[in-house]
């Protein structure tokens, strides 16, 4: 479990936030909230993969759809790798599959952002509880 003290307060919050971004739910996992972590991981990964399956990896388009990309990138750094593959426009996707894919992957990213913020807030509360502030 991550020990949060006065000395390592900011680094601990950064570790929690970064873990939650690297792997959805990992921020909660290192705070020993394992049930929450598993629920978050499974739900976000399934939502993201459903979006990719419906619209193909072409829905991650850092050039032509960068506002969506900003939300998608909150899923994981893996989105950057996929964005690098699709930036040249080799996986075109149009119409309803594009809409559904973009919405699913972007909502998954925004949900992960919610979880990251929640994990950081939980870490902050743990520190307040241990130091009595």
């Amino acid at each position: 479990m991550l020990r949060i003290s006065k000395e390592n307060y900011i680094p601990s919050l950064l570790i929690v936030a970064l873990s939650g971004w690297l792997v959805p739910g990992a921020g909660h996992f290192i705070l020993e909230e394992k049930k929450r972590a598993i629920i978050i991981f499974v739900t976000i990964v399934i939502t993201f993969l459903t979006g990719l399956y419906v619209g193909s990896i072409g829905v991650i388009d850092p050039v032509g759809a960068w506002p969506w990309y900003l939300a998608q990138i909150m899923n994981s750094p893996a989105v950057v790798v996929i964005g690098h593959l699709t930036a040249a426009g080799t996986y075109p996707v149009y119409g309803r599959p594009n809409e559904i894919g973009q919405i699913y992957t972007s909502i998954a990213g925004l949900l992960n952002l919610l979880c990251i913020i929640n994990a950081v807030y939980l870490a902050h509360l743990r520190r307040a509880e241990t130091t009595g502030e």
Partner: protein
Amino acid sequence: MPTQTAFIIASFTAPQQIGTSPYSLLWLLPLVAAIAVVYKATKLPTITAGVFLKEVAVLFGSIIVFIAVTALVLCVLAWLIT
């Protein structure tokens, strides 16, 4: 095994065929379920199966009812205007 892996990866490189029929709106249901699950996973003080499922079902139903009511109001407005 490599064939299966290649098949799985290939299925993510071409989009599925989804028409613009009213039924395509049903794609919102899994998304609403995902939103309800993640939101309740962050909000409940303790996670127990019974309470969690009940809370998720209530939130899922609330969102769907709200969407249906909004759609109905918009339909009535469109009917009145046109």
